[in-house]
């Protein structure tokens, strides 16, 4: 071979090997990740309801209002309560979610910090007993619920505490970890439902995008045990080290 050809061949082989290495990293990356078929931000919530029927005489909160523990949400005047008070005044002393005044008015208070997500009554209306007056998303309790269609082999590779990338609608990604894994079958298809927690899920952050109900894309990292895993980690660590 001529020296020019030798040079061409050598350079070509190096380029090809580099290309294959890059492709392999891409490929291994893809092998070790799975994207959710659907995912959204959820929150723990609690409901405030009345045990007795009565008239709503005051409404202090609307949907979206932030509340603190102890804030009064609604006042409901109930003749049943007034009547019961007259016979047994000690009866209502121990309730945590409302206080009762002597004229039979119940003041419902928030039992924890949070945001009002639903209101079930208006001022001037009558509410029967058992009515839910307000639903409140507990502050600091946001999590992500994501659904995946996984093969049994991929299912086996999910680890508690594994990394999950949560991509918000504005295409920024925040990290999260796997909290709980459940499987349910819907229309004959087994869906893996994963609950993801993250300390970066703070209500109202990112211009209000982080809020219960926001659809997101959750990319789950699976345990790597292929023969390329070691090399892959080495390459990624190297890239990270040199600042790429």
């Amino acid at each position, binding site marked *: *071979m*001529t020296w020019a*050809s030798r040079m*061409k*061949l050598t350079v*070509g*082989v190096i*380029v*090809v*090997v580099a*290309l*294959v290495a890059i*492709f*392999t990293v*891409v*490929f291994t990356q*893809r*092998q070790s990740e799975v994207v959710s078929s659907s995912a959204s931000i959820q929150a723990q919530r609690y409901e405030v309801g009345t045990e007795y029927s009565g008239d709503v005489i005051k409404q202090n909160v609307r949907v979206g209002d932030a509340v603190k523990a102890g804030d009064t949400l609604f006042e409901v005047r109930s003749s049943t309560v007034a009547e019961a008070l007259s016979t047994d005044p000690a009866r209502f002393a121990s309730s945590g979610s409302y206080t009762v005044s002597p004229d039979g008015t119940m003041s419902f208070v928030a039992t924890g910090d949070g945001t009002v997500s639903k209101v079930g009554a208006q001022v001037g209306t009558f509410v029967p007993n058992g009515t839910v007056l307000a639903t409140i998303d507990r502050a600091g309790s946001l999590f992500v619920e994501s659904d995946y269609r996984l093969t049994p*082999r991929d299912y086996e590779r999910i680890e508690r505490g594994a990394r999950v990338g949560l991509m918000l609608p504005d295409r920024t990604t925040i990290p999260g970890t796997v909290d709980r894994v459940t499987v349910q079958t819907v229309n004959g298809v087994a869906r893996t439902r994963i609950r993801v927690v993250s300390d970066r899920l703070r209500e109202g952050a990112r211009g209000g995008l982080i809020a219960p109900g926001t659809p997101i894309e959750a990319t789950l990292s699976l345990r790597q*045990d*292929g*023969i*390329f895993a070691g090399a892959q980690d080495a390459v990624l660590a190297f890239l990270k080290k040199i600042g790429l």
Partner: protein
Amino acid sequence: MIALVLISTLGILLYGQFLLNPANRGDLLPYAMVITAEAILVVQALMAMWTILSGGSDPRDFAFHQAQAALYDRGAVSRRGLADQRREWPIVVGGRRRVVDVFVTVYGEELEKIETTVRAAVAMQGEHRTWVLDDGRSDEVRELCGRLGARYVRRLSGNGAKAGNVNHALSLTDGDYFAIFDADFVPDPMFLHETVPFFVDERVAFVQTPQAYGNLRSLVSRGAGYMQAVFYRFIQPGRNRFNAAFCVGTNVIFRRDAIDDIGGMFTDSKSEDVWTSLHLHERGWRSVYIPSVLAIGDAPETIEAYAKQQLRWATGGFEILLQHNPFGLNRRLTMDQRLQYTVTATHYLTGIAPLLLLLVPPLEIFFDLRPMNLHISVLQWVLFYAGFYVMQIVLAFYTLGSFRYEVLMLATVSFPIYVKALWNVITGKDVGWHVTGGARKAKSPFNFIIPQVLFFVFLALTSLVAVGRDLDNRVLTLATLWNLLNTLILGSFMVVAAREARRLRIQNQGIGERRRPVAAPVQQPVRQPERQPVSVRTVIATPYPNRAEEAIR
């Protein structure tokens, strides 16, 4: 034969229906690649079948046989006492004495080879003048011509390569007809006897005979030779029916008036032969192709020679496609001729199609991009492939007597040559002129197949990744199998190249000059009809692969 072609067509249609079914469509990129490649292959295959089916007729009509019977001036033969000297028999066509010139174009070939050819050219039956057109400017060749009784022409410039060489000779000669032979094509004594009578039809511009090869020793020359056997045995006779058979530069005889009519041989291309034919057809001249082997030559023996030959031909084809579209409005061609020339011009795209197909499995392995939908099972794939490829192999088996792995291998690995040809035509880059089988010190074949080597490395590494993945997932995928197969085919070509490199090294060192080529055991077909058992019943046998097959042995 016809039934086989019809069944093949059916296979092609089923395969096409499978590919185009929207339900089977996969990811866009690989799907587009597969569809493009297969469309080229399928259209070319269908056109080839159309041409093959058209090729049943014999171009020798009554006028030909009459002219052949009266070809020699018997009176002059007996008057001058030439009965024993057949090469002096004066030729008569259409009642007039005709002068025939025979050109042997030489450009640095081995002296031995030139001698054999010139000797055979001089010895052909019928009166003719033999001219050796030497662009290699060798004094040895001049002496040789003196010895053998041929005229020697050497020109001062090298303009226009072979076509320029012939045009220069035409300015020195005045024959009515002129035959052209490359220095490595040894003509049969009956060449003129079989071709000249066609000129009794005043519209015939040239008579082309096949290129047959006598040197099918190496894997490369066998592959290249068999590839062309289909062309000369089936395609050209079919084209002949549409008056679209084209000249292949050697083993051909022209009418001088026809070439004068188009202003000489076409010199602006390395594929002057096809271009000259195209210009003749546009001027309304007739061409004749006869499938009788009347000259035997050398197929490219080394990868270098093969690569350069293919590059030249492919360049010619793409030139016609891009610079002289046969469907242009101002072309005076019949619809059949337009179609046939378009097939020629696009034929080498089929050489690029394997590139697209080679890239499909890596796309799936690395990026999970699939040409076909996931719900297609492996078996379905195989079945549909069978429809297309198995029929192709059966067809090859039937037409050539056997399916040749060499052909498949060369077809798979030649794509860089055709890509380069296409690129050269698009950018207008000129490539050097090259003789098939020149006699200089041979260079290692790896100089010419760097893209193939790189592709092999790429596919081999991809196969490793694919096998690793499949072991990991405990599922064997079709992409892996496909990729492994491609790797093997390219790998076998690497082996061929390595063997050739070793052989050339030994040759260049001058050791073992008498050794047989390492890669090439000569396989002589064993045929012993006389030992067949005598049968009392009638035996109906399929016709044994005949003339063309014999010729390429």
